[in-house]
């Protein structure tokens, strides 16, 4: 009856391996979402040494704008997949605009006056305003986001994966790759890199560093908005969906290191996978604990993050 007890231990080993990979896959897709949001933190930190504490709300707004556009296009008799693809450029444009507004209202003034904490308060305040805006426009109830891909799982080597989970990983990688390519190959990207390395020197070389910083904020909100439309089809959309994710991504940015784009991706994967593995192998009630312990360890042993370069601040 029970094969594992009657001389077929291989069956047991096989299911154990299968479970492990199943958990690994779900950890990777959750971790990728954390990674993309944290990537947004990294983008602005590199150029301006500031970050947007309203990143979670940028994600919420991106997802909700996406929802409205997708529903509108479906209403125009378009298929869900086509509607989703057509909605993406609009969501990106919205993300760019939203990020620019955050920089313009919240960060520029604080940086001009060399205020150490002004931008923190301002971005938190803007985050709250955006959340209230979302509540007023879309209501406080969780809404279902139509899934562009089939909701039936695929079975790959015994592991069940929802197509949307694969899309999350691919979409996140594509976005980060595009930004890296832009930075390395294009003249504008070189301006971004130069500003990241030394803002004063870049300014002396004729680079409009203030424009570069606005651009990095725009790109940062774009990545959050992308994360929003990627995660929305597998969860529900609502004004409060970004809060928990934004906070998790912040932990990821600290673990991976804010100065390295590669670092936040790996940091996201580390957090996502530890959460899933702890949930499965130890206890689902303690899922979040190892991630937080890791966070504390990194802060005390390697404050710049696992992949970060320690910067010496000259006073």
């Amino acid at each position, binding site marked *: 009856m029970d094969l594992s007890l009657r001389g077929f231990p291989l069956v047991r080993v096989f299911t154990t391996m299968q*479970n492990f990979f199943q958990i690994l896959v*779900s950890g990777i897709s959750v971790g990728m979402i954390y990674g993309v949001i944290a990537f947004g933190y990294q983008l602005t930190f590199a150029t301006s040494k500031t970050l947007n504490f309203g990143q979670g709300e940028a994600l919420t707004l991106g997802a909700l704008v996406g929802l409205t556009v997708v529903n509108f296009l479906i209403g125009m008799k378009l298929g869900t997949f086509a509607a989703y693809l057509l909605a993406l450029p609009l969501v990106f444009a919205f993300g760019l605009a939203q990020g620019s507004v955050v920089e313009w209202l919240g960060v520029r003034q604080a940086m001009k006056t060399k205020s150490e904490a002004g931008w923190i308060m301002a971005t938190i305040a803007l985050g709250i305003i955006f959340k209230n805006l979302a509540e007023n426009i879309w209501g*406080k*109830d969780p809404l*279902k986001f139509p899934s562009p891909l089939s909701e039936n*799982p695929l079975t790959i080597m015994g592991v069940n994966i929802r197509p949307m989970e694969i899309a999350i990983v691919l979409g996140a990688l594509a976005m980060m790759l595009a930004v890296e390519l832009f930075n390395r190959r294009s003249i504008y990207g070189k301006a971004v890199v130069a500003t990241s390395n030394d803002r004063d020197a870049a300014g002396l070389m004729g680079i409009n560093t203030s424009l570069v910083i606005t651009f990095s904020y725009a790109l940062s909100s774009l990545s959050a908005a992308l994360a929003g439309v990627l995660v929305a089809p*597998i969860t529900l959309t609502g004004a409060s969906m970004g809060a928990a994710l934004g906070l998790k991504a912040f932990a990821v940015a600290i673990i991976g290191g804010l100065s390295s784009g590669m670092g936040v991706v790996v940091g996201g994967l580390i957090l996502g996978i530890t959460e899933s593995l702890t*949930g499965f192998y130890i206890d689902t*009630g303690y899922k979040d604990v190892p991630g937080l312990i890791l966070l504390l360890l990194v802060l005390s042993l390697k404050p710049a993050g696992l992949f970060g370069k320690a910067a010496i601040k000259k006073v």
Partner: protein
Amino acid sequence: MKKTSSKKVWLAAAALSVAMTGASYAQQTIKIGISGPFTGGSAAMGVSMRDGVKLAVQEINKAGGLLGKQVSLVERDDEAKNELGVQIAQELINKEQVVATVGFINTGVSLASQRFYQEAEIPVMNNVATGTLVTQQFKAPDHKFNYVFRNAANDSIQSAMIAEAVKKAGHTKPAIIADSTNYGQLGRADLEKALAANGIKPVAVEKFNIGDTDMTAQALRAKDAGADVVLTYAIGPELAQTVNAVVKLGWKVPVMGSWTLSMASFIDSAGANGEGVMMPQTFIQLPSTPKRKAFIEAYQAAYKVDRIPSPVSAAQGYDSMLLLAAAINQAKSTDGRKIREALENLGTKIEGVVTTYDKPFSATDHEAITSNIPVLGLVKGGRVVPANPADLEGDKALRVKPKA
């Protein structure tokens, strides 16, 4: 000095005029408070409950009101937040001076808020919150009088029904998946107790937080432990995530749980994955008695919907107002103490939607719903239907509380 004292006089005058208009207004109408979540994850239950109460009030007012006065409702959205519920309780008691309050969807909000009613000696009728503790918070002998009443099936009744259904279906290895709120964890404890009473021990007990997006680990642990049925204690959106994870694993397993599996937010977001799940229901949207038929038609006409978002909440909301109205009529007073006394000794039979109430409460028993009243519901085609249609046929349709 002079300036502040004149300010004080103005304030006193203003306060007095407010108090006087409040008092004269209170003489014209009988004010009843409603506290419930009208936004957020529990909104479907809160809104249906409120709309049920409103229907009852319209009928009462059309028939001449209570004690010759019209009934007016003071609605407050507690957003399912404990701290907001506490503020609202104080506002309804002190500022609005309500005669009684109906409502509370969330056990946590109920437990945090109702001590203000107890202290003010104003009856509060829990029409949806199911935590077993709710009516026991102020019971004798620690308290001389208990002002907390309920007309919903509490968690110990629901867990007993679920455990019985598990046993009847021949399942021996249940897995419990519950959220980390008061509701989920108190319910999980009740469920474990009820299973133990049937000689069943769960093979896995899993937990998740509100807002979690991925339940793969919980579902896989349950599957790996060899569970033959999944039992849930959580609310709509996360319940949908749970069944989605079960289906994603390609795991064909029956799912049962507390009555929240009938929430529209679960049924709609789980879609096909939610078909076939079972849960205890005090009311199913079916015209199985004339009263139920009239109620469903009135609700559909008043709110222009076909499917009531949460039929159980709507029916219990409606009934809670009928019970309270009968007590006020019997007490011939709006004094909280007299209403409580009347509730504990109701002389008339009240024909409600859920059941016919014949002495539903006594001094020591503040639960109107007993274990024989709810039936098992089943999600089919995006609606809740009876799991065993025979449960609601013929003279079984009307299930009443047994005489003490």
